[in-house]
């Protein structure tokens, strides 16, 4: 198996072999994280820029740690401290970064398609760290890795994605990735939060949480974006919790073991009961650990192709 992609923009279109290859590579890097000195020289001399136009804690720290563990040189900038505030366009920002001879750009942006746009104006490899309502591929990969660790295979595993599916890039990456790996996916949430074109995924749709829990082996609980409440998608967080919040009582009612994932940050007491987030059902902290390993694998695999070109140019 060879991994020949230059960018990681979405999980849509990735084959089962490619995803498996990334995850196998990630397992190897996970071992590095457990060493007394959790650092390897693999990406020495590579320069990576992290462009975060939207707030992020976990994803940015995870990418930065992955880069440091691989000995890459990285620079991060966030919209709040950059020239974006002075009115610079994405294209200009990108062209300027390009002029500084960068190997790879990790980008999070509020507009769907921003990473794709970057691939057209710079030569560096682009990694999508979440764009608008499109995809968040590394999150999808770390969710799959966490499930594969627990269940060994995702074949026929029933995963219900619960919450604001319509606005969630995590949901989209999960759907494409999980389906490629052979899992069955269902969506659950209030009708206002279900995408109009949800049938395209051939996923079962539940509007009742108890039905979804009765069906599922795994629930991936999406974060309720509280800022959306102003748009009137749901009447109140209390009502949302009452109808769609994961609670111990509801999980016990399903009378089986249900595994809980959450991409974070958690709104305790809204989409999930505080106690359940820390319960024996939850793999939330495994997800965070795997996030660093998956990002190391993606950085390593994507820099491969480009690295080869660059090396040959400089030696010939």
């Amino acid at each position: 198996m060879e991994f020949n992609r230059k960018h990681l923009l979405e999980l849509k279109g990735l084959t089962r072999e490619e995803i498996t290859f990334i995850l196998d590579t990630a397992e190897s890097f996970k071992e590095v994280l457990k060493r007394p000195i959790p650092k390897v020289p693999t990406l020495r001399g590579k320069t990576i820029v992290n462009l975060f136009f939207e707030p992020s804690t976990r994803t940015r720290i995870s990418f930065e740690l992955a880069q440091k563990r691989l000995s890459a040189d990285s620079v991060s900038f966030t919209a709040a401290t950059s020239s974006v505030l002075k009115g610079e366009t994405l294209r200009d920002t990108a062209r300027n970064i390009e002029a500084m001879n960068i190997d790879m750009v990790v980008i999070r942006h509020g507009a769907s398609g921003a990473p794709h746009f970057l691939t057209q104006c710079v030569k560096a490899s682009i990694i999508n760290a979440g764009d608008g309502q499109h995809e968040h591929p590394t999150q999808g990969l770390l969710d799959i890795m966490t499930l594969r660790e627990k269940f060994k295979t995702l074949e026929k595993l029933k995963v219900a994605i619960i919450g604001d599916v319509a606005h969630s890039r995590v949901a989209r990456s999960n759907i494409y990735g999980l389906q490629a790996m052979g899992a069955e996916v269902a969506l659950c949430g209030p009708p206002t939060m279900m995408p109009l074109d949800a049938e395209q995924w051939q996923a079962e749709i539940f509007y009742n949480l108890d039905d979804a829990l009765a069906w599922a082996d795994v629930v991936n609980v999406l974060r309720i974006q509280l800022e959306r409440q102003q748009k009137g998608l749901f009447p109140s967080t209390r009502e949302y919790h009452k109808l769609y919040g994961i609670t111990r009582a509801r999980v016990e009612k399903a009378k089986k073991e249900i595994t809980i994932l959450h991409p974070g940050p958690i709104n305790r007491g809204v989409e999930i009961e505080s106690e359940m987030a820390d319960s024996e059902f939850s793999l939330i902290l495994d997800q965070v650990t795997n996030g660093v390993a998956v990002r190391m694998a993606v950085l390593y695999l994507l820099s491969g192709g480009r690295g080869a070109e660059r090396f040959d140019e400089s030696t010939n």
Partner: protein
Amino acid sequence: MICLLAYGAEGFFVIFLMSDKIQSKIIDAEGLNRTIARLALEIVERNRGAENLVVLGVRTRGVPIAKRIIAQIKQIENKELPLGILDVTMYRDDVFKKIKQPVVQPTEIDFEIHGKVVILVDDVLYTGRTVRAALDAVIDFGRPSKIQLAVLVDRGHRELPIRADYVGETIATEMDDEVLVNFKEVDGRDGVFLVKQLKEI
């Protein structure tokens, strides 16, 4: 030799292509066992026993050799040495030079190497770059009191100042030759083979 059957407008054609490589056996199955037994003896002799020794096999072919060395030492000294597996891909200086990307596999060392004598085992010593990478990898796990290198075949053409402490066989090769080390458990046969490129005279 490769035989191709082609079907064209005039009927069937049989095309024979002479392979441009020839393979010769350097060490056979019994020879391999004897060589590894000798390496084990030398290791025990030089270190005056098997106390304080740990064995690290370099993926992939260093691992079966390391296992066999451990089995031999157990016969001689009645002591089972711990085996660690080292993957040096992450430490290579040519990771991005190769067209085909090496697959990173996990390193498995579940014992303390601090203060130990590490016997580093690989199949073929060639440019020395793998060993250089392996030394860096070992040192990231702790500070061994010594590192000694055991290889089955030394084929010359070093690019770095590295030498082995224990050598199974030294063979003269050309740069574009290939040395294949095969093991029953991985390749279905035991033996060391030299693959020479045929050149026009």
